[in-house]
């Protein structure tokens, strides 16, 4: 297929205090697009406009080459997933999943409700009301309900933000597996950077109704196009790599030609693609190699940029890969940190956070 599965062109709209300014992007089949932004950025307005609840003042929405800009929500086949999944409380699981089929006859080849329930492991819950389901079960019912209508696009409005950290991790990985299998493009909005990193094939940072930068997660995190983007994503180093080996709770990650050691977690399976994240305050700089051998990651690096960041200094380094460190003013003076200085950057393996990625398509 040549055309994009989803194309949004120059979408603009003003609703009360919220606005969308010239939003453009395109998605190919099966791609997950994460829009990261603070609350009030217009993320929900964008989703509801895509779903058909607002008519844009300008711009077009094309799905599968069809112009849906003026179509009502019920004619778009765009699934909208809210924070708490908005299951119909008066209907049981099977009725929730079958809800969309009341309005459109099932196409040949589409999955019947029974098969959907079975596929998502919901068979035994068919007669249960939503209030008596766990968070994970609710998510699966909402996904099944959306799948039943064979959506051309999934929209997720911060579905995990109300959950406690532990269920969030579980549901996030379930969702990721689901999106990987469904092959339906998805737009996922969140203010959580980890969530963005974990789910995004492609991502954007949104602020004041505009998409400030669109790119891969590592492009956005490592090469923010503007100060606003940089401030919002933080200056965490995000590196794309491959797991080379896992042993005794430690993973070796190949990043370009370098090897980074990290504490192994769920993402660390041999040959898996991962993102390795390092917070700048966990990067130590020294003139010589650290004598303490427990610091596994020590890289010769060269300073490429220095900037004041509040009481600290933000040092951008080239260690064979881009790396950002925060140092105190005292270290800054002692080490004589200016562009071009060569030194040793070290990071404890416990400070490297691994996030699993779907293998590149």
């Amino acid at each position, binding site marked *: 297929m040549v055309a994009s599965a989803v194309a949004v062109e120059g979408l603009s709209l003003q609703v009360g205090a919220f606005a969308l300014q010239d939003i453009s992007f395109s998605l190919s089949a099966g791609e997950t697009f994460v829009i990261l932004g603070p609350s009030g950025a217009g993320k929900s307005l964008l989703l*509801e406009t895509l*779903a*058909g*609840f607002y008519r844009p003042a300008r711009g077009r929405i094309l799905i599968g080459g069809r112009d849906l800009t003026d179509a*009502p*929500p*019920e*004619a*778009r*086949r*765009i*699934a*909208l997933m*809210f924070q708490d999944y*908005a299951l*119909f*409380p*008066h209907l049981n699981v099977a009725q929730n999943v079958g*809800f*969309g089929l*009341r*309005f*459109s006859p099932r196409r040949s080849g589409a999955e019947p409700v029974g098969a959907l329930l079975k596929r998502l492991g919901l068979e035994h819950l068919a007669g249960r*009301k939503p*209030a*008596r*389901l766990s968070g994970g079960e609710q998510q699966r019912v909402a996904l099944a*309900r*959306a799948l039943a*209508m064979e959506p051309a696009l999934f929209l997720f409005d911060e579905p995990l933000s109300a959950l406690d950290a532990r269920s969030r991790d579980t549901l996030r990985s379930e969702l990721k597996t689901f999106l990987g299998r469904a092959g339906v493009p998805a737009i996922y909005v969140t203010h959580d950077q980890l969530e963005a990193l974990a789910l995004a094939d492609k991502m954007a940072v949104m602020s004041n109704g505009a998409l400030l930068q669109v790119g891969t997660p590592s492009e956005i995190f490592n090469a923010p196009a503007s100060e606003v983007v940089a401030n919002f994503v933080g200056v965490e180093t995000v590196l794309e790599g491959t797991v080379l080996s896992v042993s005794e709770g430690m993973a070796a990650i190949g990043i370009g030609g370098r090897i980074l050691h990290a504490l192994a977690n769920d993402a660390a399976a041999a040959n898996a693609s991962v993102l390795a994240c390092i917070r700048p305050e966990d990067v130590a700089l020294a003139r010589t190699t650290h004598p303490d051998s427990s610091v596994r990651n020590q890289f010769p690096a060269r300073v490429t940029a220095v900037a004041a960041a509040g009481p600290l200094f933000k040092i951008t380094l080239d260690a064979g890969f881009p790396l950002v460190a925060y140092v105190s003013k005292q270290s800054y003076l002692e080490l004589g940190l200016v562009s071009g200085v060569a030194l040793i950057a070290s990071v404890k393996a416990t400070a490297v956070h691994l996030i699993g990625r779907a293998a590149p398509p």
Partner: protein
Amino acid sequence: MTPDPARRQGFGQPRGLMFVFSLAGGLLLVFIALPLLRLYGAQTPASLMRVAAMAEVRSAILLSVEAAFLTAACAALLGVPLAYLLARTSFRGKGLVEAIVDLPLAVPHTVVGIALLFVFGRTGIIGAPISELTGYQFWGSAGGIVIAMLYVSAPYTVNAARVGFEAVDPRLEKVARTLGAGRWAVFLQVSLPLAARGILTGLTLTFARSISEFGSVIVLTYYPMTAPVKIYDMFLQFGLGDASAMAALFLAVSLSLFVIFRALFASRRGAAAGERRG
């Protein structure tokens, strides 16, 4: 255990408060229940049987029940759509619409009856042309009774149904639309069932208010007599005896209907709340 001054203070004061409040509340309960209990205490089985055997007493009670049901049906048809609009939209003049909805609660019921005469009476702006065109007259007919009842009792349905609709998460309606449901289908299959107990509560109140209505009914249509009008009529003609016997009978009918409805919808409410909490 260490003595806790805050706790001791918290223990002493509300106890006095609870005592005083219980006393005041108890007085009010006695005030409400005593006259009704006395009404029944004053009856003999013989007098009750005799009045119950009168055809005009039975037909008046039946008419009251029928007219109140019909009124509740009208309130549902006209009040539920308005309640949905008030719950879901905001528009210029909404405050005025809300004030109009509540207006009947503030108008004395004899005034309601007189005002209705100007519209539905013999020379009323609607009553006259309708009687000319169709021969139907609102005075002296069940239609006039329903109109008088509806005027004073409609606000209960509108307000309770509105609260019911407001409690329905708008995102459920949005999700339903993305799943292919048009606006009518969303209303009928999502909003209406989820607001059902608010609506039924409102209809129960409308029914109760209608069946007990006297003032506006007697002004607009003295005949055919509803139970409250018949009781008043008997009181004027024959004094307290038979009137109080019929009052006791009618009260038993209307209260038991009210209690049955409340029990039905209250249990539904309990079930729904239980489901929600899981």
